[in-house]
C-alpha cells in the first residue's frame, strides 16, 4: 500500500514537472587531440526524455572507427527539480591522421528528431612515448591578442602513471582580467593507447585581455604525487607515492591596443554573428509581435546591452529581459546574448522599422565589422485577429516571457454596455451580521460551558463530604449493648434492605419485617429482647449485603 502511494506521488510529480522540462541532447568527446591508434570516449547525453533508439552519430567514412559500447541512465535532483539523464557511450578509434568532424548525432525523441552540434577531432601521427610518461602543459591559446579579446589559458597533464593529487602554482594575471560569465572548465578523461592508457587532466580559464603590453609570465609549477607501489595488506593497503615537480615555461603574451573606433562602436571584441527574427509578417493593431535578436560568437558579451527607441513610426517597441551566457566549448569561448522584444503596432498599414546595426571588432580580421540588423516589413491590419502570439505582461513588469498567451486582440478590452453603477459594500455591517447569525451558537457554547462548570463544581463539592462507612464496617463498630446497639442495628437493617432492593426475596422480606417489629417492640413497647434477636439481625444484615454484592 505504501509503495503504491509512493508510486502515485512520484507519477504525479513527474506529470507536473513534465511540461516545464524540455529535452536536450549533447555530444561530448574526451580529448580533441589523438594519435593514430588511440581510442577516445564519445558520449551522447540526452536529458529528460528517453530516445526511441540508439542515437546515430555521423563520422567520416575513413580515418575513424566508431563503435557503440552501451548506455546508462541516472536521475539527478537539484533544488527540488528532478532531471533524468540518458547516456549513450561509444568508442572512437583514430585510424589515420587528419582533422575530422564528428557529428551531428541524431536523436529520435517521439516524433521529433533532434541534432547535436559537431565536434572537431585532430589526429596526429603516432609518436613513440615512454612507458612512464608524465607531461605537463600550460599556455595561452593565442600569442597575440587585442584589448577586450577573450583568451584562454590552458594547463594540464598527461600521464601513464596513476596520480594521487596535483597542485599548480598561481595563474598568470598580468594584463588580463576575469570574465564574470565565463567559468573555468575542468575535465578529466582517459585515452586508450596501445602502449597503455593515458590519464588526462585539463583546466581552461577564460580571461579577457585588458592592458596593452607584452607579458612574460613566470613558469607554471606543477607538483604531483605519483603512485609507485603499494604498502600494507588487506584492509590496510595504501598507495606508496613519490612527489614530482614539473616546470612549464610560458610563451610571452602580446596584448595590442585597438585601432581608433568608428562612431557607434558597441565595445564588443570577438567574431560574432547577429541574427534577427520576427515570427510573423502580418498582424493587427495592438497585437504583440515577438522580436528576437541574438548575438553569438567567440568573444565576451558581458555588460552588453542593446535596445531600440521605444516610440517608432507606427509601432511601439518594448524591451524584454536580455539573457547573456558564455562558456568554454571545444577549446573556445562562446557567448550568446538574446534580446527578446515586443513590437506593438499602433496603426494599420505597412510597418517598416528602420534597420539597425551593431559594430564590433573582429580579432581574426583585425578590423571593425558592421552587422546589419534588417527588420522585415509587416502588414498591419485593423481589428481582425491574425495568427500570432500575444504577450501579456500579466501582473508584473519583469520576465514577460513567462506569460505567453495564444489569443490576439486589441490591448485593452472594451467597456461594458450595461450594468449597475451602484454597489453596496457590506464590510461595515459584517460584524453585526455575523453576530446575529452566530449568536445562537455563542449562546449554546456559553450554556454548554456553564453546564460543564456546574457539573465540575458539584463533583468538587461532593468530594469534600466524608464518605459513610459501609455496612460491614459499621457492624464491627456496633455499641456493646443496650438501646444504642438496638438503634444502630435497626438503622443498619433498614439501610441493608434499601441497598439490596429487588434482590430481596419474600422470605427475607418477611424476616426483615418480623425483626423490625421485634426491635420496635423492645425499644418502644417495653418488651424484653429475645436471646437470639441480636444474632438474627446481624445475620440478616450480612445476608442482604451479600445479596446486593451478587446482584451488582
Amino acid at each position, binding site marked *: 500500500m505504501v509503495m503504491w502511494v509512493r508510486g502515485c506521488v512520484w507519477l504525479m510529480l513527474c506529470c507536473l514537472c513534465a511540461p516545464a522540462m524540455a529535452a536536450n541532447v549533447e555530444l561530448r568527446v574526451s580529448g580533441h587531440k589523438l594519435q593514430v591508434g588511440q581510442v577516445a570516449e564519445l558520449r551522447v547525453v540526452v536529458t529528460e526524455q528517453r530516445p526511441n533508439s540508439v542515437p546515430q552519430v555521423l563520422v567520416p567514412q575513413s580515418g575513424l572507427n566508431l563503435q557503440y559500447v552501451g548506455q546508462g541512465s541516472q536521475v539527478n535532483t537539484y533544488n527540488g527539480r528532478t532531471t533524468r539523464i540518458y547516456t549513450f557511450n561509444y568508442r572512437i578509434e583514430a585510424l589515420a591522421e587528419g582533422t575530422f568532424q564528428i557529428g551531428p548525432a541524431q536523436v529520435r525523441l517521439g516524433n521529433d528528431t533532434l541534432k547535436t552540434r559537431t565536434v572537431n577531432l585532430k589526429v596526429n601521427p603516432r609518436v613513440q612515448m615512454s612507458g612512464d610518461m608524465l607531461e605537463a602543459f600550460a599556455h595561452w591559446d593565442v600569442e597575440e591578442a587585442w584589448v577586450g579579446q577573450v583568451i584562454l589559458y590552458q594547463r594540464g597533464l598527461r600521464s601513464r602513471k596513476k596520480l594521487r593529487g596535483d597542485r599548480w602554482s598561481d595563474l598568470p594575471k598580468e594584463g588580463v582580467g576575469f570574465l564574470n560569465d565565463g567559468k573555468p572548465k575542468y575535465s578529466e578523461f582517459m585515452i586508450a593507447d596501445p602502449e597503455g592508457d593515458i590519464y588526462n587532466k585539463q583546466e581552461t580559464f577564460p580571461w579577457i585581455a585588458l592592458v596593452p603590453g607584452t607579458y612574460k609570465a613566470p613558469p607554471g609549477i606543477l607538483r604531483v604525487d605519483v603512485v609507485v607501489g603499494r604498502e600494507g595488506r588487506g584492509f590496510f593497503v595504501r598507495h606508496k607515492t613519490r612527489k614530482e615537480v614539473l616546470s612549464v615555461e610560458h610563451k610571452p603574451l602580446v596584448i595590442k591596443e585597438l585601432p581608433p573606433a568608428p562612431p557607434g562602436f558597441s565595445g564588443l571584441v570577438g567574431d560574432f554573428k547577429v541574427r534577427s527574427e520576427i515570427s510573423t509578417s502580418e498582424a493587427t493593431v495592438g497585437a504583440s509581435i515577438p522580436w528576437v535578436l541574438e548575438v553569438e560568437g567567440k568573444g565576451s558579451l558581458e555588460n552588453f546591452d542593446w535596445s531600440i527607441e521605444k516610440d517608432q513610426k507606427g509601432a511601439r517597441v518594448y524591451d524584454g529581459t536580455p539573457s547573456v551566457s558564455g562558456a568554454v566549448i571545444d577549446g573556445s569561448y562562446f557567448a550568446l546574448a538574446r534580446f527578446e522584444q515586443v513590437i506593438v503596432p499602433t496603426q494599420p498599414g505597412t510597418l517598416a522599422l528602420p534597420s539597425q546595426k551593431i559594430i564590433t571588432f573582429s580579432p581574426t580580421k583585425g578590423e571593425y565589422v558592421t552587422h546589419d540588423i534588417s527588420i522585415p516589413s509587416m502588414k498591419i491590419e485593423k481589428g481582425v485577429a491574425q495568427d500570432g502570439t500575444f504577450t501579456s505582461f500579466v501582473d508584473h513588469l519583469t520576465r514577460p516571457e513567462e506569460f505567453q498567451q495564444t489569443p490576439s486582440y486589441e490591448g485593452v478590452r472594451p467597456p*461594458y454596455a450595461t450594468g449597475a453603477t451602484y454597489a453596496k459594500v457590506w464590510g461595515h455591517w459584517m460584524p453585526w451580521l*455575523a453576530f446575529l447569525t452566530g449568536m445562537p451558537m455563542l449562546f449554546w457554547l456559553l450554556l454548554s460551558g456553564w453546564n460543564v462548570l456546574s457539573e465540575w463544581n458539584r463533583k468538587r463539592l461532593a468530594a469534600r463530604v466524608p464518605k459513610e462507612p459501609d455496612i460491614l464496617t459499621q457492624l464491627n463498630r456496633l455499641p456493646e449493648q443496650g438501646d444504642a446497639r438496638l438503634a444502630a442495628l435497626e438503622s443498619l437493617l433498614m439501610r441493608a434492605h434499601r441497598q439490596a432492593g429487588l434482590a430481596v426475596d419474600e422470605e427475607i422480606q418477611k424476616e426483615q419485617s418480623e425483626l423490625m417489629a421485634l426491635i420496635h417492640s423492645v425499644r418502644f413497647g417495653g418488651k424484653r429482647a429475645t436471646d437470639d434477636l441480636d444474632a438474627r439481625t446481624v445475620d440478616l444484615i450480612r445476608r442482604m449485603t451479600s445479596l446486593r454484592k451478587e446482584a451488582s
Partner: protein
Amino acid sequence: MRLLLFWLLSLICAQHALAGAIEEGYALLETGDLEGATELWETALDSGEGSAILHYNLGTAWYRRGNTPRALAHWRMGRVLHPRDANLVHNLAVARSELADVIEPIDSQPPLLQVATVSEWGVLGSLLLGLASLGLWIPLGRRRLGKWPPLATGVVGLVLVWIAISGSQHLENHPGAVVGEEGAFLRKLAARHSDIVSKLPPGTEVGVERVHLGFALVNTSGESRGWIPVGAVFFVGQEWNVHP
C-alpha cells in the same frame, strides 16, 4: 413600517436611475464622446459607492484618453469590488505593462481578497454560522448529526468572518495608492520642503502606511519609504479615493 417601506422603494428607484448611467455613457462612447462619457460616469461615482462595472468603464475611458495612471487606479478599485472579473484583471495587466519606467507594483489587496470580496467572505461565513446555530439548537439536527459537525461548521464560519473583517480593516487602514499623472516626489518628512528621497513616476503603485498632515507615508517595492502629498495619488481601498 411605512417609513421602512418608503425607504426601500426610494433605494430601489435610485438604483434604477443610476443603472441608466452605464448605458448612457456607453452610447456617448459609441459616438466618440469620450469626455462626455467620462463626465457622466464620474458624476455617477460621486453620487454613491461605485460598482465594479462603473470603475471598469471609467478605467477604460481614462485609458483611451491617455491617462493610464488614473485608469490603473480605477481598475484596481474595480478589482477590489469584483476580483473575479477577467476583463478587469486583463486590462490592469496591460496597463501595468505599458508603464515601462515604473518599478514593480505593490498590490495592497490581500491574496484572499483577490479571490472573493470582503462581502462575499463575510456573507459565506455568516451563513455557515447560521447553519451551525440551527444544527446546535434544533433537536432533530442535534440527534442526527451530534454536536461536532455543527461546531466545526461554526468554526469555519468564524474563520471566514474573521477574514472578511480583517480584510475590510486592512483595506480601510492601509489602502493602496496609485501615483497620478503628474508623478510625485517621495520626501523624508511630511513637509513640502523636506529632502527628496526619489521621484515616483506616474502610475507607480505604492502601499500606504498612514496619513498625517496632508501627506501619506508610503512604501514602494524598491524598499524606499517616504511621504507624498495625498493629492498626488489615488487611494484604492475600501472606498474609492478615500484615505485613512
